[in-house]
């Protein structure tokens, strides 16, 4: 390496410096500050704050409220993730199936993706309007005789929770289809041809070729969806009263954090401790799944898949 080239490579630091400074000021310090606050009884109203050790955390575990929020968040995420990935695999298999020749794949995909772009706050308010007592859903159900009389949907725990799950599914399945399909189309056709020569059935090919080669993509979807799902806020916040009603059944982690933050005294110490715990829970799950699943396998086909999708990173 010549000297000038060596010197020139220092420009790499020059180009990434703004990012690093921005990250230290707006990324890392707030994380540190949140952690520091979580050990204090700081409120927005008082000037003085005392170090209280783990009191905020023990208090969170002492009552059911925190565990209930964690439970709700996981239930809502899992229930929407399963149909999301299921439908995405099904549609992608159809869209890439040379025998079926589905027409207008691009248009279907584009339309299914549309809800993902809409303002989540508006989507929640929209479904609130639809399912309110005088809303169109009641009109429809009563007029066509599905219900004898109008009902309060948003006072029922299963219906409200189901609605949050549905909205999340509705907003995200199109995006998952696009990613899964991109993964499927990048699997070499020669693999399927070879399998067909060997007399493999469609189901066998899906299980033995498609799924293993899709694994990195599926992990990516799983991790990004989990990270997003654990921070769910807009939809459950605006679908009912902002406190997770009915019976706190859609009170998620972030809603709980917000409620502590926005309480009359503004307990930001306690709110921070919620943030810290969810941060730890999500990061450990996400990074754990990502690295554990990605590096565990040794079979030949998985290695090729890794080479295929993670060329640089696994090197």
């Amino acid at each position, binding site marked *: 390496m010549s000297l000038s080239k060596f010197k020139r490579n220092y420009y790499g630091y020059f180009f990434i410096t703004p990012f690093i400074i921005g990250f230290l000021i707006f*990324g890392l*310090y707030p994380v540190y500050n949140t952690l520091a606050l979580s050990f204090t009884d700081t409120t927005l109203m008082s000037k003085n704050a005392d170090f209280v050790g783990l009191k905020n955390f023990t208090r969170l575990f002492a009552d059911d409220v925190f565990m209930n929020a964690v439970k709700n968040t996981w239930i809502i995420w899992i229930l929407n993730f399963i149909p999301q990935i299921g439908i995405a695999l099904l549609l992608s298999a159809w869209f890439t199936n040379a*025998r079926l020749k589905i027409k207008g794949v691009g248009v279907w995909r584009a339309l299914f993706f549309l809800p993902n772009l809409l303002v989540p*706050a*508006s989507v929640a308010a929209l479904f609130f309007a639809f399912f309110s007592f005088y809303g*169109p859903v009641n009109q429809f159900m009563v007029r066509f005789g599905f219900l004898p009389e109008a009902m309060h949907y948003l006072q029922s725990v299963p219906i409200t929770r189901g609605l949050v799950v549905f909205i999340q599914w509705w907003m995200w399945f199109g995006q998952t289809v696009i990613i899964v399909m991109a993964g499927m189309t990048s699997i070499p056709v020669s693999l399927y041809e070879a399998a067909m020569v060997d007399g493999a059935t469609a189901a066998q090919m899906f299980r033995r070729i498609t799924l293993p080669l899709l694994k990195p993509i599926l992990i990516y979807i799983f991790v990004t969806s989990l990270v997003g799902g654990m921070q769910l806020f807009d939809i459950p916040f*605006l679908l009912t009263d902002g406190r997770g009603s009915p019976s706190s059944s859609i009170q998620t982690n972030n809603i709980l954090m917000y409620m502590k933050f926005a309480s009359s005294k503004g307990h930001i110490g306690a709110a921070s401790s919620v943030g810290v715990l969810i941060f730890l829970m999500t990061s450990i799950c996400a990074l754990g799944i990502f690295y554990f699943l990605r590096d565990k396998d040794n079979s030949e086909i998985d290695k090729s898949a890794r080479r295929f999708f993670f060329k*640089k990173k696994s090197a």
Partner: protein
Amino acid sequence: MFNNYRLATNIQRVFAYAVLFILLVITIVPIWLLIVNATRSTTEIQQGLSILPSTHLVENYNILLGKGLDLPRGFGNSTFLAVASTIVTVYFSMLTAYGIVVYEFKGKQFFSNFIVVLVMIPMQLSIIGFYQYMSKLGLTDNYAALILPLIANAGGVFFGKQYLESIVMQDLIDAARIDGASELAIFHQVMMPLAVPGAATMGIFAFVASWNNFFNPFILISSLEKYTLPMLVQTLRGDVYRTEFGAIYLGLAATVVPIIIIYAFFSRYIISGIAIGAVKE
């Protein structure tokens, strides 16, 4: 045998189209009803469902304004914030990504992996510490608190890196160097023009992310005149509008229609951009 095979394929095809059609109805009907109801009067909405628009758009708009919902200002605020966020995200993400892709420096691989980890960590959960810190700096109720953090947008850098790796031409950079261009000038004058398609895709995502963001402005912004559209949506849930269904639908439609229009023009960019983070071609 051959006919059976064809029959089976045809049955499967019909089934597939039926499922696709049902999914399409589920996807489109809520959005369509939203737009239609924005043009109908409250009386019409209470009388029953309709899939055809009516003529009360202006009336609904006047009701909204009459109740003090400043839709034009919210629109302006959201637009300003989204445009500024887009510019900051695209410029700084491309700058960082260019540094990673073009130069060989010590710690490059570490930095690169670090970006991937940052993408997978819920940084948003430090919002409380962020809020308190911003209030010490006097930046609460200030758009700067929403825009400046985007200088370090890990998702943007990750996307930019994937994109630049596919287009960077070392020869072109070397040629510019021989012509005496500085490294920064090469980035601005040689690389950025080449990277326009990737920058546009990233820009659309940055725009939509800012436009749709509710949580951060909701925590950080307090004065009514700085409210963004999603924050105005939250006020629409209040008692003042309880019976004004047409106006509520219009308020909601106003937040989503601009995005639908952008999507109609740029859907190709958007769809091709989604998979970039996941699949390396």
